[in-house]
């Protein structure tokens, strides 16, 4: 290892140890900041899961008139797929399929069986179940096609029209949640960064007189600045380890509780599958912020 680097490392660790009180304060602030930002990331993931689930519910079902030929229904399907290539799925459910699905769903339920006998024959209509990607534009395109004059003779009813208000409300709410979440996230991140910066500033301000002396005796910018930057990085590295461990423990301990509220969302799996993103975010928030703040705080003392 380079001699100068060893010296800088030694100076950084010595200062870290000798100023234990301020070091612990800085680590605490960096840990809280890193956890807040990790929390925001996880909340973002949870809300996008929730929004996706809501959007998945926005299916459109077009019921065709009794006696509409399979060929005509397939023609409508082709039109939809042609105009909205990103659509998730278009499933054709024939009269017989619909009856079978009903029977399967209500197997052993005498009330439904009797009701079906009462009606007589197969009362179900052939249909196309369209699963959109949740994009509002896509939804609009499909509804335009299904309501066009071209297919008015074939289609008995389109299910979306009954849920239209709800669907539009969901779009509006999810859009507002996203905007609010981003704004709140940015605000929290800015506050956290300001708190970290000022904590590091307090730590370094304690050494203000020493920095002046170091300049007077001829210390180069690098030699003077490097131990402080390294010290900031040490604060950050410790904060990273603590926050990662805490985030890991939280995600596993809260996973069961969250899956009760949000069925299908596994927090621990989400945490594990997003480690590639969570680790860089935490490193940036802890080591990046610690070292970066030190860099800028010391900079102002180098003008002597």
């Amino acid at each position, binding site marked *: 290892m380079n*001699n*100068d680097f060893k*010296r800088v490392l030694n100076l950084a660790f*010595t*200062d870290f140890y*000798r*100023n234990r009180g301020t070091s612990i304060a800085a680590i605490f602030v960096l840990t809280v900041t890193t956890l807040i930002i990790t929390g925001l990331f996880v909340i973002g993931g949870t809300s996008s899961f929730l929004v996706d689930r809501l959007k998945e519910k926005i299916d459109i079902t077009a019921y065709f008139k009794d006696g509409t030929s399979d060929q005509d229904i397939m023609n409508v399907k082709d039109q939809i797929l042609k105009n909205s290539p990103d659509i998730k799925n278009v499933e054709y459910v024939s009269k017989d399929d619909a009856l079978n699905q009903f029977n399967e769903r209500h197997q052993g339920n005498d009330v439904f069986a009797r009701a079906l006998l009462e009606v007589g024959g197969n009362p179900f209509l052939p249909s196309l179940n369209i699963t959109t990607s949740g994009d509002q534009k896509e939804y609009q395109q499909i509804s335009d096609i299904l309501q066009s004059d071209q297919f008015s003779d074939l289609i008995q009813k389109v299910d979306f029209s009954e849920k239209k208000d709800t669907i539009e409300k969901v779009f509006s709410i999810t859009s507002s949640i996203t905007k609010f979440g981003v704004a709140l996230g940015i605000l929290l991140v800015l506050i956290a960064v300001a708190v970290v910066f000022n904590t590091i500033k307090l730590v370094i301000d304690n*050494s203000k*007189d*020493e920095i*002046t*002396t*170091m*300049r*007077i*005796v*001829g*210390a*180069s*910018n690098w*030699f003077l600045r490097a131990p402080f930057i390294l010290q900031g990085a040490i604060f950050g590295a410790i904060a990273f380890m603590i926050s990662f461990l805490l985030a890991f423990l939280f995600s596993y301990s809260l996973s069961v509780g969250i899956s009760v509220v949000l069925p299908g969302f596994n927090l621990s799996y989400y945490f594990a599958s997003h480690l590639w993103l969570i680790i860089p975010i935490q490193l940036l928030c802890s080591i990046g912020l610690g070292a970066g703040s030190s860099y800028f705080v010391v900079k102002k003392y*180098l003008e*002597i």
Partner: protein
Amino acid sequence: MIKFENVTKIYPDNTSVLQDVSFEINEGEFVSIVGKSGAGKTTLTKLILGLEKPTYGSVYFQGKSMSDVDSAELQLIRRKVGVIYQDYKLLSSRTVFENVAYIMAVEGKENDEIMLAVPRVLEAVGLHEKMDNFPRELSGGEQQRLAVARALVNNPDVIIADEPTGNLDPYNAYEVIGLLEKINKAGKTVVLSTHDRGIINKLGKRVIIIENGKITSDEEKGKFII
């Protein structure tokens, strides 16, 4: 070695501290700069170190104008100057050993050299038994001797001592002056700023007297005559 050429220093609050000051200090000289408090002595030493820039005129160190050097070069010049302050300006979070070793590390000296030179210089100022102490654990005289050790360790071309005896009792004050005389005898240039009449009169060296920012006297074997 050090040259002031028509130097005037006016601070941003319009306080004029030095007015058209010119003098030259040659290599190996022992020069005392004498004046009352506020006469401009400290500003003068700050100008030599590049801690302040002259409002008018130029300050030269080894032929280089201090106004023209960049930050990196300024730091190189500062390494050629050993500074002793009245308030010591020690590194309070570092031990006696580390305070001196830091100066050598700044110059990029090897560890072996540092391990050899630091105890030697601390022994010369009588602090070898307090190497592991922190400055706060030393007396005023000891702290000033540590400042002297720090100023000496890199074998600088010039020693600037700004009121080095201001906080010391007469015994410690003469001890510090004695060290400066020894350094001067070894061929180093010493610039001593003080208002201690006894010390100046005993030294019998060149004295520059500053009054209200102007040089009123510059004599080879000067006396304190304010």
